[in-house]
């Protein structure tokens, strides 16, 4: 679905933000891209929708080369939820806000109406239908931006740091939403430096450092590699540290962290 072939991106000021990135994401996969601030995660996702064009290398979305396609066209397939909702809300009412993208993409009026209602319902924002989007709380604004994206039903959904500023309840709801998206066959990419919240989802994890991909694999495998995560300045989920510490004890009944986890969570004594 998404393919980056040896993509390098150099800023105007000479800084190399991406260095030989090769990555393939299949349809229906849920992928987490992790790494410290400045590792290149946001730069990478901007390439997927053509906001940035690679200095060298190719980016393909569903077979289409992003070099020759406009962001507006690519966005029909790839919806990106940026970190700051205040960078996009502008309409008179929440329903107008949701209709904005739909109209840009050429949805006929009756379909617009339908999808707006559906989206509002799904995210529990029906009561704000006629309100100004600017008076919503931070968490509600984030839900609104996500609702706007799902309204046009893109095949790929990318979330850029969705947990920044969210409390525990909101994060839990977010995990549920990501699971739901995955179960409906969408390709989901979550960019985050928050490892803890990602752990229950067990996605494929891609670790970035200084513009390169330093690791790529299933969550249980990647999250246990302590030294690699340390050098990429990514914090290990607490539970993983705990399981690993358990597994390392002499005389421990566990062979590895995964067994330890199964023991604890399975309740087998």
């Amino acid at each position, binding site marked *: 679905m998404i393919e980056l072939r040896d993509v390098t991106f150099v800023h105007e000021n000479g800084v190399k933000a991406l260095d030989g990135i090769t990555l393939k994401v299949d349809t229906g996969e849920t992928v987490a891209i992790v790494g*410290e601030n400045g590792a290149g995660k946001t730069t990478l996702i901007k390439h997927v929708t053509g906001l940035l064009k690679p200095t060298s290398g190719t980016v393909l979305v569903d077979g289409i080369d992003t070099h020759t396609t406009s962001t507006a066209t690519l966005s029909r397939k790839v919806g990106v939820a940026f970190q700051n909702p205040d960078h996009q809300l502008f309409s008179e009412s929440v329903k107008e806000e949701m209709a904005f993208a739909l109209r840009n993409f050429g949805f006929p009026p009756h379909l617009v109406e339908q999808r707006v209602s559906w989206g509002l319902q799904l995210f529990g924002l029906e009561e704000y239908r006629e309100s100004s989007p600017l008076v919503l*709380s931070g968490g509600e604004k984030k839900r609104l931006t996500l609702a706007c994206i799902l309204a046009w039903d893109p095949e790929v959904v990318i979330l850029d740091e969705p947990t920044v500023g*969210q*409390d525990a309840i909101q994060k839990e709801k977010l995990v549920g939403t990501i699971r739901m998206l995955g179960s409906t066959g969408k390709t989901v990419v979550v960019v985050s430096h928050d490892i803890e919240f990602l752990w229950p989802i067990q996605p494929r994890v891609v670790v970035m450092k200084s513009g390169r991909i330093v690791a790529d694999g299933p969550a249980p495998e990647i999250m246990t590699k302590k030294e690699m995560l340390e050098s990429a*300045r*990514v914090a290990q989920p*607490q*539970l993983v540290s705990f399981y690993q*510490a358990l597994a390392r004890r*002499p005389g421990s009944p566990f062979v590895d962290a995964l067994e330890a986890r199964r023991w604890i969570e399975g309740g087998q004594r």
Partner: protein
Amino acid sequence: MGKILEIEELSFRYPEATRKAVDSFTLDIGESQIVVLAGPSGCGKSTLLRTINGLIPHMYTGDYSGDVRVAGSSVRTTSMRDLAQTVGFLFQNPENQIFMFTVERDVAFGLENLGVPRPEMRKRVDEAIGLLGIENLSQRAPHELSDGQKQRVALAGVLAMRPKLIILDEPTSLLDPKTAMELVDLVARLRKELGTTFVVVEHRLDLLVRVADRIVVMNAGAKVLDGTPRDVLFGEDADGYGVSVPAVTRVQKMLAKDGLAPDDRLLGAAELASVLEGKGA
């Protein structure tokens, strides 16, 4: 007495609102403490913070009852000018509290406003910059800095005023975990070296648990939990209030049900593992 902050039955309602943002809140904090203020979004934390440094009632008016005293002086009757020298406030977005074009000038901002003479100002600015380790940034422009660096600059500006109490409003929200950890260590060091009290509003409790002396949980404007990190996190109610109970704590609570948890409530993964080693096998 030595109490740096005394909040007594404080209630506050914004002019247009129907409910109170803060409801009969009472809290005492002594010197050299790190207190975490937690609670779900919208519980009134931001409002409470502003009653401590005086923005409420000096900048924002409303229905105000009860009293807030900082170092013995009532906030209501003390001017912002005096309050600014006792209470420092580090706002959530570092960008919107850096005014000057050069880092060094911004650290001096508060002192310039107070009319502090140049030699004294120079001393305090150098001191604050040194405490935060940002000497190499002192001549840079703010837009050249990363978020973590901007935050240090803003904190230096606050420290230059030599406050006894510093409020940090969600300081780690824009930072990645490693940088966040560095900030927490910095706060702990400042507490130790300067004896400053810190009130930190934070969602990410797992980062602060090791250094906090106390956790206070708010919900719908009222104080609902108040105690040491162990008491609060291992208590029954923590989950209910949308508090991010760290994973290690949850594991122990789970094990406690089967009588397998260690007697000491542990906050760290490694300690927990080493204690369980004996029990699990």
